[in-house]
């Protein structure tokens, strides 16, 4: 069973580690990700202006591409997921807008595509039990703090994935991998999002609070499903002498931990470009492959 997959711009550029590990684990789980034959940017933000037709063109065109390959698509990027699911929802309930955009793009979209996040496929199709059965390197003793951020779960009335105040989906995924899951109060706080571009001081401050809280609660690593969260939490830790934060903590994608737990080779872990190199975390595990590459600095 292959799954139509929309990588999005960030996973093709800055966050290749998420893309590589995601494709590899999907392959290993017997449900390979099949990249959409043609795609462009999802639009990057869901438009909240009253007149939103311009901003809806990109996601509508993308959803039309999805329909050409069966009408179902999955993403890894939390922001692409957020934009596509909300756009899909909006277009389904606003046929007049759909008509207008279809007239403009000349690529008719029916309004009936299904947008899922890869985490939902794991939960609803593979199931956590099914995932845990595939794990051959249980990450026992690894204390990880799931970090949900905002866009993966909110607004819950439209996203309908999990309760944003008490989310469990990443918790359950990490538990299936054998990790010790650490709860911490900042797990669904905002990382600062796109303010990293216009007001970089703010995400830096927020990242300091989030990473400090995770470490205070005993986490060895933060785990996210969003490339922007990953960047905003990881990048401020780039200098090794982080006096502002009193220490460093690696920030991983859940697919990277899955790659380790499923015993995949280090080449598909995609951990080379992290500001805080996470690979030391796995030195003590009996890995079935590639443990000699762990200390490989680049």
């Amino acid at each position: 069973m292959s799954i139509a997959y929309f990588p999005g711009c960030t996973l093709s550029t800055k966050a290749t580690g998420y893309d590589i590990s995601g494709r590899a684990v999907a392959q290993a789980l017997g449900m390979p990700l099949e990249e959409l034959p043609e795609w462009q940017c999802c639009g990057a933000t869901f438009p909240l202006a009253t007149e939103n037709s311009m901003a809806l063109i990109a996601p509508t065109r993308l959803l039309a591409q999805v329909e050409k390959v069966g009408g179902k698509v999955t993403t890894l990027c939390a922001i692409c997921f957020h934009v596509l699911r909300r756009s899909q929802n909006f277009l389904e309930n606003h046929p007049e807008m759909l008509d207008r955009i279809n007239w403009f793009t000349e690529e008719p979209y029916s309004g009936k595509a299904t947008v899922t996040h890869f985490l939902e496929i794991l939960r609803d199709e593979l199931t956590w039990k099914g995932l845990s059965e595939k794990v051959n390197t249980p990450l026992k003793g690894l204390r990880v703090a799931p970090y949900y951020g905002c866009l993966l779960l909110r607004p819950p009335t439209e996203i309908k994935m999990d309760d944003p105040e008490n989310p469990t989906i990443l918790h359950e995924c990490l538990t299936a991998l054998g990790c010790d899951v650490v709860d911490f109060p900042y797990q669904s706080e905002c990382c600062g999002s796109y303010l990293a571009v216009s007001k970089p001081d703010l995400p830096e401050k927020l990242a300091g609070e989030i990473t400090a809280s995770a470490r205070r609660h005993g986490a060895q690593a933060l785990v996210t499903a969003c490339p922007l969260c990953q960047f905003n939490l990881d990048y401020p830790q780039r200098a090794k002498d982080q006096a502002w934060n009193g220490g460093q903590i690696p920030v991983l994608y859940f697919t990277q931990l899955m790659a380790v737990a499923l015993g995949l080779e280090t080449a598909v872990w995609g951990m080379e470009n992290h500001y805080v190199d996470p690979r030391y975390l796995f030195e003590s595990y009996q890995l079935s492959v590639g443990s000699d590459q762990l200390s490989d600095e680049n």
Partner: protein
Amino acid sequence: MQAALDIANSGYEVLMVEKEPSIGGHMAQLSETFPTLDCAQCILTPRTVEVGHHENIRLYTYSEIESIQRDGAEGDFTVTIRRRAAYIDWDKCTGCGACQEKCPFKVFSTFERGIGPRKVVYTHSPQAVPNKPVIDAENCRYMQSVRDMQSGVIPAVDKQGNPAKPKCGACLKFCPTGAIDFEQKDTLFEEKVGAIIVATGYDLISMESLPEYGGGKIPDVVDGLAFERVLSSSGPSAGKVIRPSDGKTPMEVVFIQCAGSRDPERGVPYCSKICCMYTAKQAILYKHHVHEGQAYVFYIDTRTGGKGYEEFLNRAQEEDDVVYLRGKVSKLFREGDKVIVKGVDTLSNLTVEIAADMVVLATAVIPRASSRQIADMLGLVMDENDFFTASNEEMEPVISTVPGIFLAGAGLGPKDIPETVAQASGAAAKVLSMFQREKVTA
């Protein structure tokens, strides 16, 4: 209660049916009242005692309406009342309290809002009317063991082959009048009445529905009624202001108004009306107990419509140095032994973070869970929030849509004590005028 007294004092017989083992409602839980800071218990007890001793009032406590049948066009009902088994013969019981003293088992008390214990055999409230205890069958060790023997979970005969004895039974042993009766069953009574006043009161929305405020899982985050018990001299700490988690005196207390109110998305759309005033009262009382302490109040706006109410709020702000912050709290969580409160002050446009020792949520006022059932039984109309609806909300606020049935109190919508009492007297007046009319036309 006010309605019952007004009607009884006019010479008519009143049946008062109360779900709890004793009367007084939520007012019995309050420490002081606003805006006079009268001791709630002290102004309530004369009324409850008067009801308890009134020659024209018959009290059915620990009872609920089972069914109602209409016999005539207006004001002619046959009411079936179910009195729950108290497992204590109240005719024999003198209210001495020996059973409660000897009972070895404690559970969380709903009257104390979960911040204090009660025994398994208990009197509902301090200075209870009637002053009679009930046994909590679910948690009673004796009754549990009897149930277990009946279901075969534990053997019904001991090793010698004699019938096994139920466990505990301390109350049975020590009751001086032999009033304990584990065999007691619910009793049904049938009564004929000419009019019905529905005064079912209110509840608070559960903290579980407010996950951003801890969802009820943080011990030092309590609701308004629980903080009344913290302040009350008859509460679990006998009037010493201590927090539930470790019994320390909280030096910084944050009050959050509109916790669930005016929040159509997550809570209820309406204003709960009483919270601005009781929060100001609680902040003042907290400062009177803990002089060095600091109280903060997060509010959307302060609604103080009532005689002396705005002056009372000013007193909190000016004389008792309560810091009022206009804004909502987005989130709170536990960090060590503190509760971190993250909010915004929209007057200074700054985000605010307070490391509090205790947080009090002014949770939304909602109708009693049973009010829907009562409405169905009586044929009453409810609004979209499950409050009862009067036949004409403006001009006949205490007359229901069903002839002979009248309404009063917070079951119609949130209201404070003076308004509730006024409405009760209004409902009583309507009942009396109906009786008078019948007398004239008969």
